[in-house]
């Protein structure tokens, strides 16, 4: 199948990002279009492996070789079918997934891997463009009702799957719009919200009922759901941020990343945001070198700051795959996201020791010290330094789901890490109540969230029907 020698003939090629100067002046997606003819040759680089590690690398187990080949052979219609068979929302993962599949790509052992993620995005965009994405109504209704709490990627995936299995699904969202992290966490330059809208439209037309501004456990007692629904899926995410407990933390101008990103997303969506936290003209320090940190970085660039620093407590990773994470593992290596290209200074092995503020109680300086490697992060004497900072964004990850409210009132059993404990079918300690996504798994990737949602849907379907055809 495909072209056996494609990997020897064609080089890896990705769509170019728009010029930095251009892209930092708007919030549109950073990538340029990529001609389909070229993309098909990228598909030809796939070796159609006897053991495709990419598929295992992918939490959704996307059948990557099949659609790579279909793209190469110009059979887009079948490609999108194969893609949708494992992934409800390839347009999300095709944009924002860090692509563990590519890290596991066999070609990656000694060559640049196949541009799987880009191909994935191209397939789904092609399908939308061609008008192939219709609502897919279930052949029959079971009469069972399922409540999904949380409209992030796992909730949405579960809702779509359960609806397709014939159940009536209602999605509850505490915010005023559907989408969870996809809507409020991820900046538009990575995921324009029209991409979310068109999928939500499909789901609405399929019969999924969305209810916004319903904060279960606060606005609506969770017990109420129990009477109305045959099963409940909790997909509320891991929203408790990890805090930085150092002197001066209480100063103004120090915010959690989510607070900052959410406001900008609302702003881009055209909502008025009173007192928006803005980086404009400020000396910004972002604490945390992960994806959220990078999102803050990109957002900050677009607000025209005076300077931006990003601090990471871990030492700088090697430029290539580290020996400690051999193929096909997710590699420890230096990554340069679009936001990093756009400017700012990255500092490694830095620990913030305290903040000092100005007379108004606003943060003015950040004091830090260089540290040794994990797990001890031993401070290195004499390396302490101070940096001017009047906006500090904390992007140090999340501790797990918010406990008070819904989880507490359900008396939910949690695991050692504070996440909701579930059995193999994703059912929690409360019969009929299931959990998925970051709420069960802890903070993770969108692709994991979708995978969780699908698996939980399977568990729920089985619970309701005794058997399931969902995959």
């Amino acid at each position: 199948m495909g072209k056996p020698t494609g990997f020897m003939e064609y080089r890896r090629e990705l769509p170019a990002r728009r010029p930095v100067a251009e892209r930092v002046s708007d919030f549109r997606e950073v990538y340029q279009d990529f001609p389909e003819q070229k993309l098909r040759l990228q598909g030809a680089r796939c070796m159609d492996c006897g053991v495709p590690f990419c598929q295992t690398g992918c939490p959704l187990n996307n059948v990557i070789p099949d659609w790579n080949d279909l793209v190469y052979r110009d059979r887009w219609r079948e490609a999108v079918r194969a893609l949708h068979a494992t992934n409800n929302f390839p347009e999300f993962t095709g944009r924002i997934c860090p692509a563990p599949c590519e890290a596991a790509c066999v070609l990656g052992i000694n060559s640049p891997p196949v541009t799987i993620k880009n191909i994935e995005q191209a397939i789904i965009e092609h399908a939308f463009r061609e008008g192939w994405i219709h609502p897919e109504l279930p052949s029959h209704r079971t009469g069972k009702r399922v409540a999904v709490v949380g409209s992030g990627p796992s909730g949405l995936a579960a809702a779509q799957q359960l609806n397709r299995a014939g159940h009536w699904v209602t999605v509850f969202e505490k915010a005023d719009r559907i989408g969870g992290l996809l809507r409020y966490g991820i900046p538009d330059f990575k995921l324009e919200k029209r991409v979310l809208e068109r999928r939500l439209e499909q789901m609405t037309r399929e019969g999924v009922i969305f209810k916004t501004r319903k904060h279960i456990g606060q606005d609506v007692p969770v017990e109420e759901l129990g009477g109305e629904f045959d099963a409940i899926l909790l997909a509320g995410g891991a929203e408790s941020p990890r805090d930085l407990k150092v002197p001066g933390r209480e100063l103004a101008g120090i915010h959690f990343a989510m607070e900052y990103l959410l406001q900008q997303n609302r702003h881009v969506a055209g909502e008025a945001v009173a007192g928006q936290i803005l980086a404009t003209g400020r000396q910004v320090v972002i604490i945390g070198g992960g994806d959220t940190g990078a999102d803050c970085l990109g957002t900050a660039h677009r607000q025209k700051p005076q300077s931006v620093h990003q601090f990471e407590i871990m030492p700088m990773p090697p430029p290539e795959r580290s020996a400690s994470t051999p193929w096909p593992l997710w590699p420890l290596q230096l990554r340069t996201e679009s936001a990093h290209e756009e400017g700012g200074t990255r500092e490694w092995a830095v620990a913030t020791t305290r903040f000092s503020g100005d007379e108004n109680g606003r943060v003015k300086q950040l004091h830090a010290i260089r540290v040794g490697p994990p797990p001890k992060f031993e401070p290195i004497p004499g390396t302490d330094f101070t940096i001017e900072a009047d906006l500090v964004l904390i992007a140090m990850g999340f501790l797990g789901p918010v406990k008070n409210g819904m989880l507490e009132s359900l008396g939910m059993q949690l695991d050692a890490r504070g996440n909701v404990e579930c059995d193999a079918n994703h059912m929690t300690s409360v019969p009929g109540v299931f959990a998925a996504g970051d709420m069960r798994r802890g903070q993770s990737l969108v692709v994991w969230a979708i995978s969780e949602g699908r698996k939980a849907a399977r568990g729920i379907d089985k619970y309701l029907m005794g058997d399931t055809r969902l995959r």
Partner: protein
Amino acid sequence: MSSSMTPRGLPEPQGLYDPRNEHDACGIGFVADISGTKSHDIILKGIEILINLTHRGACGCDPQTGDGAGVLIQIPHAFFEAECTRLGFSLPSPGEYGVGMMFLPVEPHERMRCEAIVEEIVIEEGLTVLGWRDTPVNANTIGRLARSTQPYIEQVFIRRAYGMDQDALERKLYVIRKRAEKEVANTDLREKSFFYVPSLSSRTIVYKGLLLAPQIVNFYLELSNSEVRSAICLVHQRFSTNTFPTWHLAHPYRYLCHNGEINTLRGNVNWMQARTSLLASRLFGDDIKKLDPIIAPGGSDSANLDNAVELLTLAGRRLPHVMEMLIPAAWASDPTMPEDVKAFYEYHASLMEPWDGPAAVCFTDGRVIGAKLDRNGLRPGRFLVTQGGLVIMASEAGVLPVNPAEVRFKGRLEPGRMLLVDTEKGRLIPDEEIKQQLASRRPYAKWLKENQISLKQLADPPRVQPTDHATILMRQRAFGYTDEDLRLIMIPMAQNGEEPVGSMGTDTPLACFSDKPQLLFNYFKQMFAQVTNPAIDPIREDLVMSLYDFIGREGNIFEETPQLCHTLKKRHPIVTNWNLEKLRRVSQGDFLATTLPMLFRVEGGEKRLEEAVDSLCRSASLAIKSGYTMLILSDRGVDEEYAPIPSVLALSAVHHHLVREKTRNQVALIVETGEPREVMHIALLMGYGASAINPYLAIETLEDLHARGYFPPDYTFEKLLKNYIRAVDKGLLKVLSKMGISTLQSYCGAQIFEAIGLNRAVVDRYFTGTASRIEGVGLGVLAREALLRHKFALQRPVESDTELEIGGSYQFRERGERHLLNPGVISKLQHAVRQSSYSTFQEYAKLVNEQNRNLFTLRGLLDLKPAGPPVPLEEVEPAREIVKRFATGAMSFGSISKEAHETLAIAMNRIGGRSNTGEGGEDEARFRPDPNGDLRRSAVKQVASARFGVTTNYLVNAEELQIKIAQGAKPGEGGQLPGHKVSDAIARVRHAIPGVGLISPPPHHDIYSIEDLAQLIYDLKNVNPQARISVKLVAESGVGTVAAGVAKAHADVILICGYDGGTGASPISSIRHAGIPWELGLSETQQVLVMNDLRSRVRLQVDGKLQCGRDVAIAALLGAEEFGFATTPLITLGCIMMRKCHLNTCPVGVATQDPELRKRFQGQPEHVINFLFYLAEDLRQVMAGLGFRTVNEMVGRVDCLVQRRDVNHWKARGLDLSAVLYNPAAPARVGRRCLTKQDHGLESSLDHKMIDHAREALERGAPVFLSLPISNTHRAVGAMLSGEIARRYGSEGLPDDTVRFDFTGSAGQSFGAFLAKGITMVLEGEANDYVGKGLSGGKLVVYPPRTSSFQPEENILVGNVVLYGATSGEAYFNGMAGERFAVRNSGATAVVEAVGDHGCEYMTRGTVIVLGKTGRNFAAGMTGGIAYVLDETGEFAKVRCNRASVDLEPVTDGRCRACATLDEGTASRPPTDADSIAFLVARHAELTGSPRAKWVLDNWATMLPKFVKVFPHEYKRVLAVSPASASLAPVFSSGDSAPTGADLEVGTSVGAGLRAGAASASREALGG
């Protein structure tokens, strides 16, 4: 199967042993006086032949007990007359009485019961018992074991009824015997198994027993009595695969003795059984009913064939006619056969199927005596006729000394031909005359023309219903089509016209472990030929293959009427949808079809399946009663309410039901089914009795795919369908030929499959006679699987999911089938060995063990049980000792890269394990250590069918020589290395030409039987006496029995491979569907070897996806001493199971020759070493836990294994491994592991004398010369000496002619095998098979005795398979050679005067000149080298050459780069074709004194244009593009001067050593 089917004398089925798997092979022969003059001398001669064939037999654990021997002679009337008078009764005239040779119980009362039964029957049949006579025997002369089971032997004399003619008497005696056999079997006598009637006839008598040839004359005392006289004597020496005392399995039977085996036996017996209801004979009258069963239960294949011959002969056909009917020549595509003879065969083909298999048969009815070879001609047979009218025929030449001057004619049995002596008419009847006589008996051609019909002739049906995608999709789901089926199987088949090729082994669970619903097809595994019979090459030898089938109502085969050929003739088994509609509506002659639904109701669940099958069987019976002659079993009606019955279940159930009802032959069973799509499926349906198959859904699927644009635009649906059918046909031929079967007609119903995981109830009832040894699922599960698919079929397809299941059997898919080698396992292992982390390895081992226990492999069903208290780990033998038991698998340099190949070798040499060359030779540079001390030499040198690079030097540079009989991934198949993979380096070590494709034949052409294997073992052992010889087998039902034969053939090591072994390229269906897991094969082998007390002589090795310590422990407990690994070491070196080895695109540089990709190889010896040491460490932990200190203690301790009881898998819970865990009872003295060494019998080798004499040459290179007599018992002469030379001088050898031996006499097999450079052997006389096998630079000259008077070119001089795998050297034969001359020659130069069929097959280099006739199929698969054939009649070019891979060109005087250079002096000026021919013919004339060569030279101008140059396409193409290759053209060393053109002088001086002897000899001969 019932115990009554156990051949008498063999043990009952037990454990994995089944007596049905027993094989034998033999030496056969006869001597006859053409004039019919009876003499005692004939008997003495026959016995002498027998004694000289002793080496073809074998003895078991008791060296005095043979496998059986016997003679058949005419009734010695004069002797009996005198004897009977002495006993008090008198005999009537000859022909008026019959003599029964009777084996009876030893216990007197029981014996008397038997005698009484016989007497009663005789009286009832109207005859008279004249008296009984004790046959005097001397039991002291035979072996202990033979004596212990010796029956009481008597003769009974029976007088005819008044006025009865002799034929009628014979028939009555037959009836009496059949009745007596049955009646005794029905008694409750304890010793009834002793009862056996070797012969009961008025014409012939058989003396046989569990004897060695030399014992027979001492045992049967009367055989030395000079009053015992006969004009004929038929003899047989048996080599069986067992050591069980079986007196009556000795040959001859009543009419024949047989060398070979009948592969299609199960089908033949079933068909015979089924047709008995139709038999009606004027001659037998009512007696016919007493003959049932025609085929006596418990007989061997030969005995069964004898039963059929006996019946047909006594029913009125003459014996030669019967033989031609049962073992027909290959008629369908032989261009040389006259049309009326073809018509004769075709007519008889519509009567019955051939008994197919390698067979050389000697037969007699006491009046005529003859011999016949089957269509393939895979057994040797040589005969000579003396001036005095004696015919001597035997498996070998030289078995009876005959004064050369007395010889009138020497010949060999040829494929499909017959040798016949009519002692009544006093003449030898040539084959052509026999065939003509038979062909002119009746107007067969006219009958066929008038009665036979074809599909074309049938009326067109109204339109076939069209279908749409939705319907097709529903059906595809109902029949379990997967995306993979379409993508990887069907599309490639339809596009390319052949089955797709894959690589690496299968690693998915058995069907009975799979969580997915499996097709019933997947519960079966194909069986294949190994050792006891050869596989066939269906491509290169397609002339013997045939897919023709004849369907229709069978009649009474005793008759010979036009009506009997009123059949529908089909070219292949597939019926298109269009043609099926024709058949459905047929109304022509007897043909009338009805359609029976092959469906069961969904409602009501699993039990509905059984009801539906029963009802289908009843409907079939009813349809037959109503007069239908064609039953179309159809599952077209699948809908919401009905699911399909698995097609092979429905078919086989009906087939066996009708066989039992004896009505099977009255109908054709046509299967109209949506289920089959790949070759295996079609093969199964044919194998279980389908007459034709309409795979309608496969056809519709192609149509649908075509409509949806899945094929390139220039493909029409018609073309795709044609391609698809062609792919099925080709694949089917491959499946047949794997088993050594040539015709679909005899494959039909032959059930050449083993079931894995079906329970006894299902198998016994619906697949009667099929081996299924571990129980498994029943109909309930099969129904459930069908229902699961049906449920899926009814679901509405959705946009958001693929239409079909993903599959995942061929490529790993997360949602698909599970794989042992999955991303987790592969990466864990690589991380462990690369990071040198034992703890990571333990994680890996845990993964492996968990997935095994999660029901994957048979070993996963086992638990370990300690043998005693645990021992401290430090007391367990160290890992460094254990790793010495490890070997890496045979992977050729060619299939894997140089880097990978050498890394494995270095690793294994460092730890004292063994790496294996695989089938591709080895670069001699690797024989010397590297500067750093590493050795890149593989300890194991493989000898495979193509003999690539198998030179003497290669053989002596080995610790072990491994004969690869079969390969786990594709047992029974050959291989092909496409030209683009043959790089310079590969070409060099394989002695081939770069860029020219290389073919490995399916069989070793020197192993067609177990005694042939013994010969090859002997050859190799001679070349390298220090090396141990191992034989590589693949697990299948019966492998234990084969292994017992191999042990008796003196192998030192037997390797049992699992079916899941890897491959560099193999048809995808072979990878999955042929062979069985090693657990079964190993366990069976251990059991059978112990039962035969052969285990202690051999070491057992096992391989097949062994991954961790527990796997190895289980293998040891099941009986293995050594362990092989191939896939896993490759993974440690970077292999990621790409499964693209066949494409040369391995992205990690392991399985590729692409220089760019090879750079990506990252493996290091340490990786392999880490793996093996970790594995050994892992094993040590297991050992400590079990209480074992050494591996030796563990071997065969099957009592330490128990089947798990905690399995509740819906399929696997039905499995029962007790047969695998069976421990045959045997006394303590019977070893259960290797304890002694084989006795190879090398001390009797003639080479010892030769080596002694050649001491000067060996030590100092001084010329030596010696003359010696030779006989056929001297085998592999020259091989040991050649080994000595190679050891000292490498492949360079000695200067030509340094060592010269002149022999006189008949040389035994393998004369001059592996003859090294510097040795010249001249033979005056004749030689048997395999002359110059593996010739490695030596020179061979053979000519007939100077005193003989026959024309050399018309008489057989050297046997079959001469110069097989020769790599260099020269050979000159002044006479005719047998079949397969110079097969796989890769560099030798030879001149011969005529050759049999398949000359120069697969040749890749070298030069061959044939100065006369060739047989058929010359140059099949020849890709390199040149042959020149003197084609005086033009027949060669017209019909005898297979031109698929060669061009025939005129020989010119023009310069040609491709031909042989004459010597270094003239190398700069390439010689012309004419130069080369002239030079070689002159040399031939000079060395052999050939009158024909002289005549050719004398008439050079007229003869030269008659030479045809056989020039392979590929070779020509390569020469055209790459002049450099010209230097690789065959080069032979030469004499002092190079004659040019026709300007020749006979007697040109040649090498020093040769001058004296041969030159004078040739002058002498030419002068005479």
